[in-house]
């Protein structure tokens, strides 16, 4: 499942970050920011319009990601992990 499909307050574990295109700089930056396999994430809040962007808690940090950015992140929801 994708991080962008995760419900608010739901938690999951990151499986991997996929490149949307060759040498995807957004995917690379996501990995640098700690979006790597095994890392637990949680959707803390959603933007007021269309639930975009998402506020993602990872480790001690909170990142605002647009849905298109979050769609690069494959996660395994908590209840399955």
């Amino acid at each position, binding site marked *: 499942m994708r991080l962008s499909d995760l419900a608010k307050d739901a938690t999951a574990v990151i499986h991997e970050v996929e490149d*949307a295109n060759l040498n995807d*700089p*957004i995917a*690379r*930056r*996501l990995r*640098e*920011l*700690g979006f*790597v396999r095994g*890392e637990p994430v949680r959707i*803390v*809040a*959603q*933007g*007021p*319009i*269309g639930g*975009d*962007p998402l*506020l993602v*808690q990872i*480790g*001690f*940090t*909170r*990142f*605002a*990601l*647009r849905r*298109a*950015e979050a769609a690069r992140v494959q996660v395994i929801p908590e209840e399955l992990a």
Partner: protein
Amino acid sequence: MNASAAALRIAIVGNPNSGKTALFNQLTGTRQKVANYAGVTIERKEGFYTAPSGRTVRVLDLPGAYSLSAASPDEAITRDVCYGRYPGEALPDLIVCVADATNLRLHLRFVLELKRLGRPMVLALNMMDAAAKRGIRIDTALLQERLGMPVVETIAVRRGGTAALVDRLDRDIAPLDAVPEPHDDLHVEVRALLAETVTAPRKTAALDDAIDRVVLHPVLGLAVLAVVMFLIFQAVFSWAKPVQDAIDAGIAMLGTGIGNALPAGALQSLLVDGVFAGLGAVLVFLPQILILFLFILALEESGYLPRAAFLLDRMMLAAGLTGRSFIPLLSSFACAIPGIMATRSIQDPRDRMTTILVAPLMTCSARLPVYTLLIAAFIPARTVAGVFNLQGIVLFTLYVAGIVSALAVAWVAKKLNKDKSEHALLMELPSYRLPHPRDIAIGLWERAMIFLKRVGGIILALTVLLWFLSSFPGPPPGATEPAIDYSLAGQLGHLLHYVFAPLGFNWQISIALVPGLAAREVAVSSLATVYALSGNEAGLPSIVAAQWSLGTALALLVWYVYAPMCISTLATIRRETNSWRQVWITAGYLFGLAYVASLLTFQVARMFA
């Protein structure tokens, strides 16, 4: 002894929001120099302090970066300086890496990346107070052993909070072993380090969670944002008023005093009508700008502004901007110059260009004198619907017109841009923290200096130039018309009148528009000069009310919504974008919009009159 020869040069490096600048301020105090890096306009902050051993330490504050594989111009500077590749910037003797003790999961990765450079390095574990409060315990000794570099605890916002760091920097620090490896396994290393050295009871501060629940709530959050914005504008306009009046009176008194002390003539006229009038016109805006920046800096330090950007991102994206544009555009309400400079934090170059393009449409404080003069003269002070003041509504409408136009222009720019690839947001929302007075004071001081130097110089020069153009050549003997008619400015005004007559502007306005193009607020003082030199003794508001039609006044108001911007803004755009094309595009579209909108306004008003 020459202290600078033996000076230790250190560079402060770290993730955004790690407290680098607070640490820099604590180390160097006011002994700072802010300039730009050669060739680019990213701020280069350098300061110095004297170590206990008597050695001078030069401190370079580098832009925050998440990684050495740079994703923005800011990060590229940090990368290049760390590698010793930046032209004109010597490789630092020592790297002080700052990491937020409450956010080591993210920050340690960059520490490890920097470590591989093999440079002498010290890790400053900052915000130890916040970490202690949240029950985060760090085994500093073990971390130091595992990292193989000195690790020092700091609290950058507390007096003496960097004493341990200063002390450690005064002793020798050995270089590390360079490891030319790929960075893939850094996260694994970070996890191992954290497991060994850090115990944290909770992922986030309970306070952050509680505040975010309200502030980021889809309905409550937007309400909070609206209230915050309202309070800021209320403060900008009501708090600044007495100070502005005092400055106005003070400068006028000084001018009169000097005027009386000098014999009448060209020198006296230059000083009183040129220099002091110009100086007053500039200084009068300083209180508003400082109050606005007081709020912006406090909100920025507190961590609230990125939340506002989060709430507004979707809306701004639809218009072709990004949530990150919010902060620069907010600054532009004080003055477009600091606003344009603040676009450096926008990583996507397209988003940055669009933000720079529309920043001049935000109603900067320089338009206020024009607005207040015309509104006072033409709009009756009536109460509408029991509570609202009609003059206030008109002023508000002018602000809204600027914002709506900015969104429309950004939307068009998005449609015209051929590069449709994805724009990234990827924004960290930092922990909330109490803004520190010293950091805000230093920030305000910097903003004030930028404003006074850049804007002040140009406005002063223009006022003097206008005085010269309006005074020379003098009228021929036996002249019947007012003196200004014979001057260069008068001739220019009559010429421009052909262009501006369809907008309902008379030749006096046409003259005033010329310096008004260069700096908007000068338009009012220019009108005053022009009418004064034309032999009108009455005050400007009564002249305007008596001699202008409503259509002319409305057209001029609309003109200043778009107001082909001031020279200082154009110069800033040139510097920030390194492109004359961007300057011409901006000036051209603003002029076009101003002309068309004023033309429509005047012609429509004439039909109803």
